[in-house]
């Protein structure tokens, strides 16, 4: 795993215990970008980013992620 992905993975685990939905959204957005060549991985991380944007109540961001998911075939 690339060091940058390892770092994101560490942060995802650290954030797992709860809270900080905006940061969790950002981490998954970064992962979706970094893994953009793998459509399955991209859809997976966009899904999580979308969920955490909804949880945070960041509606414009959620709408953007919803569009991205739809374009990626995840909706």
């Amino acid at each position, binding site marked *: 795993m690339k060091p940058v992905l390892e770092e994101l993975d560490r942060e995802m685990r650290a954030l797992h215990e709860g809270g900080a*939905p905006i940061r969790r959204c950002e981490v998954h957005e970064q992962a979706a970008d970094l893994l953009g060549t793998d*459509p*399955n*991985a*991209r*859809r*997976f991380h*966009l*899904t*999580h980013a*979308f*969920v955490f*944007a*909804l*949880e*945070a*109540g*960041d*509606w414009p961001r*959620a709408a953007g992620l919803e569009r991205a*998911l739809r374009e*990626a*075939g*995840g*909706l």
Partner: protein
Amino acid sequence: MLDDQSLISELARVRRPIGEAHGLPNALYTEAQAHEYERRRVFLEGWASIGFGKDVPNPGDALPIDHVGVPLLLVRDHEGGLKLYQNICRHRGMILVQEKRNFGGVIRCPYHSWCYSLDGKLRATPHVGGPGLNTSPSIDRDKTGLVEVPMGVFMDVVFANVSGTAEPFEDYIRPVRERFAEFADQQIHFGGPESSFGLEINANWKLIVENNCESYHLPWVHPGLNSYSRLEDHYHLEVPGSFSGQGTLVYNPQLDPELRFPDFPGLSDKWDTAAEYASLYPNTFLSVHRDHFWAARLEPVGQRRTLEHVNIYYTTAESAESDTYRPLREKNASQWCGVLTEDVFVTEGMQKGRGALGFDGGVFAPAMDSPTHLFHDWVAAKLGA
């Protein structure tokens, strides 16, 4: 083991004229099967109080409530309205919210992260069609939102009819709304943490209701009231099928020699000295005074154990929130807590008394116990007598 035929026969006896009637049968205080029957017929198929609006003051606040074993979720939506849902995810029935919190966005199930907006709509179903695929032909989001539970609010008390089969809330609340018409649409202001207290009582909820219904016990159980609120200053409240209770003609609060709470505006002269204490069946106490209002909800947490949640409200934001009135609020709450605590030995004593073999439910004093008999009669009717 509960004998259905003897229970029905004993319930019929409750419904006779007060001079011939007996109280509710012992099984309803001691036997699990009777408790379950009562839970369903009284608390789930009818209206009952489940909380207070002041517990979810801000948009996004969500309060999980265990209502006689049914998980409910009280939510303040973004428009400031109240919503009541079953507190479960439509996917696998997981409890959605475990403790009170605020949701800035959606409510996310902690199990598979299905997401619901505060209006109950299913907003996201992550990976439902496989990894990264968020739709499934078998999941219709429009039909899979949170299950809304019929609710109503009166003077900040939140009521629910879990089964959805009771009469409209307006019909349920109408008698007490009419009785308290001068208070019902007034602005009320919760008095803050010092105006909220709870009692844990080792007694069946019905014993606490019947004690609240009548003034007969006042000189014996609350001797401090005798100096300014004598037994003969009280009268009965009696609305069959809805509520009963007591009123006093000599309400005259003297918490402080100089400071007093402001009165509700526009009250008629009657309320200069009157105060009334209604037990709205099954589990709500509504108590009106010219300068404050308190409401209590009985939460049956078992057949022999009840939590009593008491909240006091005032007539203006200043009297409810300012430091100037804080000592007065504390004193008022302390006095009410003292009075209600004085009742505990009675209700717990009656519960212990229900262990007597062959107790026939007792008899009623027609002149003094008619509000209590009305309550027993209502329960008996709800249970099919």
